[in-house]
């Protein structure tokens, strides 16, 4: 049988030989956490990364050239929620890597804990991303910061956490929800304003609207220097 899955241009991401769907290689073959579709190829199991359910997948589908996540990376994930994207990031970093999933809500933390009990590279933390000083003694320095919180001061939270935990030369991924900043202004104006402000602190290397997959969302990727 011919090859059904081939490597994507990005690290740790796979795609169909024919078609556009993207996949990650499962570190726990045979386990499905979120009703996602799976595909088997050459003894390996691949989980489909649905761009309508995850902003990171949407960013990849929009043609992002570098998401900064590599194998064995240590990742700080702010706004882990039920852990949908978190489980794919944990696939990407592999068993040697680690994902610190931070979320302040007890309800979703329950689901994340059940996920973390199966996947030993997800670390659930019931903390508020607004106060990094409260969890600075619970984590180590990280290679990538991924933030997806729907807060009014999401940019401020991002800068705080990147300054505190991100290594020099590490990447930061910020997904912005325009509607939680201001419902009356045009989303694009908000994104450009935030991008310019981030550019003064870090180096912005990518900025994309996630349009057909997520309404009024954008993602910015920065590099700390």
């Amino acid at each position: 049988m011919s090859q059904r899955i081939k490597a994507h241009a990005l690290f740790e991401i796979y795609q169909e030989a024919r078609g556009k769907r993207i996949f990650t290689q499962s570190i726990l073959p045979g386990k499905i956490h979120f009703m996602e579709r799976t595909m088997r190829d050459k003894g390996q199991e691949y989980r489909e990364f649905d761009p309508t359910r995850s902003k990171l997948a949407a960013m990849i589908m929009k043609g992002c050239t570098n998401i900064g996540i590599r194998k064995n990376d240590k990742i700080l994930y702010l706004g882990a929620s039920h852990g949908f994207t978190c489980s794919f990031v944990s696939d990407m970093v592999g068993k040697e890597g680690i994902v610190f999933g931070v979320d302040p809500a007890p309800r979703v933390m329950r689901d994340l804990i059940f996920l973390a009990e199966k996947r030993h590279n997800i670390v659930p933390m019931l903390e508020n991303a607004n106060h990094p000083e409260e969890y600075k003694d619970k984590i180590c320095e990280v290679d990538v910061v991924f933030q997806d919180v729907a807060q009014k001061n999401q940019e401020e939270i991002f800068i705080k956490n990147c300054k505190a935990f991100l290594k020099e030369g590490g990447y930061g991924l910020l997904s912005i929800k325009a509607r939680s900043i201001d419902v009356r202004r045009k989303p694009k104006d908000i994104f450009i304003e935030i991008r310019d402000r981030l550019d003064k602190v870090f180096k912005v290397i990518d900025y994309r609207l996630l349009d057909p997959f997520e309404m009024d969302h954008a993602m910015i990727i920065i590099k700390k220097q």
Partner: protein
Amino acid sequence: MYLYSNIIGSFVLSKELKVIDSLEFEDIEDYIHKYQFENKLQQKHKNLQPLPDYKEREMLVLFKEDKYMEKFYKRNLELAKHKLKLSVTEDQLIIQAIANTQELDRVINLLSKRLREWYSLYYPELAEYMTHHEKFAEMVATKTRKELLQGKTMGADLDEVHVKQMTLLAKQILGTFELQKQHKEYLKYIMEKYCPNILELAGTTIGAKLLELSKGLKRLAMLPASTIQLLGAEKALFRHLKTGARSPKYGAIFHHPIVQNAPRSDRGKAARVLADKLTLCARLDYFKGEFKAPEYKKLLEEKFNVTKD
């Protein structure tokens, strides 16, 4: 030499940030009582100072080694479970109870409509003159058609087998009514202890609904009166903000007797004043103040001439 503790253990560090001595925690209880471990290390080594802030960044790099990852995982998982256990409050119990009460409302309506349709095959006149759902279900469940019959009926004469299913459904509906009543009594019982002022001024259903919409007493106490007035009218409010349609005057407090009994022209005003007093009540309850709600209630009733009925 420095003393530094994190979730893994307590460490003694040299000036160059090399680990000299360490005591690792066995479980999360140790982390919560970490001062005991710090004291032990302090007795062993003299002249220990806490780590200055500007050096904490370097510590994070030190713990990036793979051997610590397993421990980070275990300790943080335990800590998250511990915090989750402590996070359950009366708020969540009230929110679940009121949410189920409202769900039962919908269920009762659905089942009652079906019972009416079904029983009308047998005895249509009863469904016609008895419009109250609970009384209707009670009649069907406890009495036979012979006992209820007034004059003649145009319903079909059905066998016992067919009627039995209807009586079973009626009993189920009565059970649901009973469950709802139990929920309301339970809500009253916890709210009497947890938020007596809100209970007194808003009543069980509206008070619990406000707590549900604001996701807890803490947040309700922090909200301004104008937001409390419009809790539950978010759709109309954002339509107003976005398109400039007319602004809503009341949300969940619309069903309160003070707003309901006020003349139509005064309803907005009544809602505003009521929301103002509810804000005060929420703050009194959250900060464990005195019981002032009856005073406010009397004031509002005088202002809007509400006669008790």
